[in-house]
């Protein structure tokens, strides 16, 4: 029929052309990242040595960067302008993460002391606490604050602990049997989201500690951090590939962006991702000594 009727042939050609154009449009929409570089946070003078964590103060609209090798905390304004550095008079020992408490004091993870250190800025007072859980020392790694509650990741036991005001554990989230080890966690949507680096899985627990089915991640080499997008996606940072991969809530890869290197669209041994108060995605780009902020 196609050979005999030129009109019919033309019709079929048009149909196939439209079909393939539409498919490629849908494919492009699914695979292209909407994220564009917005700004970069860098220190002054010698800058930051090796930034390892970012805390976004939603209330004050400020960024606090934890520079572990520089033994300092560096603050930036909402526009990304450098504000000041804080070293607790040279007393911070390998800081690794931080949050700001409701009373305005800072809570800092000091790896060098294995301490959760409360810094009372008004009274210039520093209190070191080695957290213990069930009689054993907790090796505090990542730190989060949500709804006034403080959560920590314990590297020794592989648990997420919720702490009270005196920094004593009041709740423990144990990982499922056969879990690997934990790289990061976030508290979002009234859930605790945990990234298992070995198994490349994401676990989530509701406020009562009830787990949801694990999300299996694919197409990722060395996951180190995760961020939960209220819009429905799950972002995972791949430290070795210098890339961010966006997953659906069932673990399907939606798109990925950035690559390893030193340029604007590159990351070099990045360490953490999180959303800021404007819904921008921030990346702690440790190897490039900067924080990269991307907007949609």
């Amino acid at each position, binding site marked *: 029929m196609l050979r005999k009727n030129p009109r019919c042939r033309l019709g079929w050609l048009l149909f196939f052309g439209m079909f393939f154009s539409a498919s490629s449009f849908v494919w492009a929409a699914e695979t292209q990242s909407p994220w564009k570089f917005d700004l970069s946070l*860098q*220190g002054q003078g*010698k*800058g*930051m*040595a*090796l930034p*390892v964590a970012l805390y976004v103060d939603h209330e004050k609209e400020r960024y606090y960067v934890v520079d*572990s*090798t520089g033994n300092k905390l560096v603050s930036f304004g909402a526009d990304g302008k450098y504000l000041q550095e804080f070293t607790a008079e040279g007393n911070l020992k*390998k800081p*690794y993460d931080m949050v700001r408490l409701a009373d305005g004091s800072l809570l800092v993870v000091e*790896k*060098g*002391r*294995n301490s959760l250190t409360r810094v009372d800025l008004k009274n210039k007072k520093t209190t070191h606490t080695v957290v213990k859980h069930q009689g*054993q*020392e907790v*090796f505090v790694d990542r730190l989060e604050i949500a709804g006034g509650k403080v959560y920590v990741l314990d*590297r*020794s*036991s*592989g648990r997420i602990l919720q702490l009270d005001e005196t920094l004593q554990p009041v709740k423990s989230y*144990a*990982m*499922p*049997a*056969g*879990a*690997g*080890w*934990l790289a990061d966690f976030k508290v979002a949507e009234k859930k605790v989201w945990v990234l*298992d*680096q*070995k*198994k490349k899985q994401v676990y989530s627990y509701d406020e009562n500690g009830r787990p949801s089915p694990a999300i299996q991640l694919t197409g990722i*080499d*060395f996951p180190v951090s995760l961020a939960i997008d209220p819009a429905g996606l799950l972002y995972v940072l791949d430290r*070795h590939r210098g890339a961010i991969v966006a997953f659906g809530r069932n673990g399907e890869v939606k798109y990925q962006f950035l690559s390893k*290197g*030193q*340029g604007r669209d590159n990351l070099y*041994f990045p360490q953490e991702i999180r959303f800021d108060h404007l819904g921008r995605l921030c990346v702690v780009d*440790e*190897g*490039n*000594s*900067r924080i990269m902020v991307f907007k949609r």
Partner: protein
Amino acid sequence: MRRLVIILLIFGLFTGLACSVALANEVCYKCHDKKNFSGKFTHGPVAQGKCGDCHNPHVAKYPGLLQGEGATLCYSCHKRSKTEFAKGVVHQPVRDGKCLGCHAPHAAGHDGLLRKNLAETCFVCHQEMAKPQAVSHKPFAQGQCTVCHQPHQAKNDQLLKMEADALCLSCHQQAQGSAGHRGFPRKLTGCLSCHNPHGSSRKGLVRQHLHQPFAEKKCDSCHGAQQNTGSEACLHCHAGIKTTMMAPHNHMFAGTENGCILCHSPHAGDDKKILKTSGNKVCQSCHQDTFSRYAQSQHRHPKIDSCSDCHEVHGSDRLAMLRDDGNQVCSRCHLTQGKFSHPVGDKVIDQRTGQMMTCVTCHDPMGSPHRYHLVLSAKRELCTQCHRSY
């Protein structure tokens, strides 16, 4: 009518086969000695004279006038293998697409077209295994590696056919009640934490170096009811290691078990550090992506004995858990570098990061597509990162 079609088809098939054999006989074997293409076991296409299935007689992109490269060519016929060999733990030559590392493409004296007998084929790479041992595991002594291991891919670490304990107990059913395990408080587990499955100088294949409490039969010092759990179970004795782990980048990790025993055996090992397996393989069990990148990279640092030559194993303040800064680590071997090449050191600042220039600013020892394992091409791209007006 139907019969006639079937007869014609069969006739056509035989004629085609005869023609292709005849083609190989008449054309290829005129120059290539036929003896080199026959053996106890012959590859199907060779036996059928279908040289053209793999080779292009006139011109090709790949050496040996091959139609495709490496495993891609093999998978064009062995289609199921391509899917199967991508799952789970994959043997490195398979992952690298080097089928010919073990298999001969034309003919061989061994089943599966293996180049040598099974054990000899394995020992080509696993050379340390070939050393004679005072006590050897029987299947190993008989060269029957595939009794325990899968050659291509497996669901389990070390390419084991089953989970390690289940595999041991599938033959050693009597082990639970044996004299050596008397007093074991529960069902036998963790066989490999005491026994070397290949060979040892000790009776019962017990590994060479024993953890002190284990050697002194002081099981309670770790397993007592009031003892610590998680990494603390080890660190309350190994306080020095605990200090090194108090660093931003460290290998303290635990999920549902003690993180230390991911690398170390709590009872016995083959070296003084009582590692679970030989040095780099311990690292590879987690850092598979780095090992794959290294293996597949066109340009990379020459192979070094141990990852720990450059990297700390417990904890480090530095990127990539390096032992020292990116200059000191390299200059221990590269004595003259930095003195006559591009300036490096704390007085030379990388304007992109504000940090000092080091060897790893420009080189990626774990592998790169560029010469001298540079991170970017040296023709222009790398230099213009900083020298913009160049």
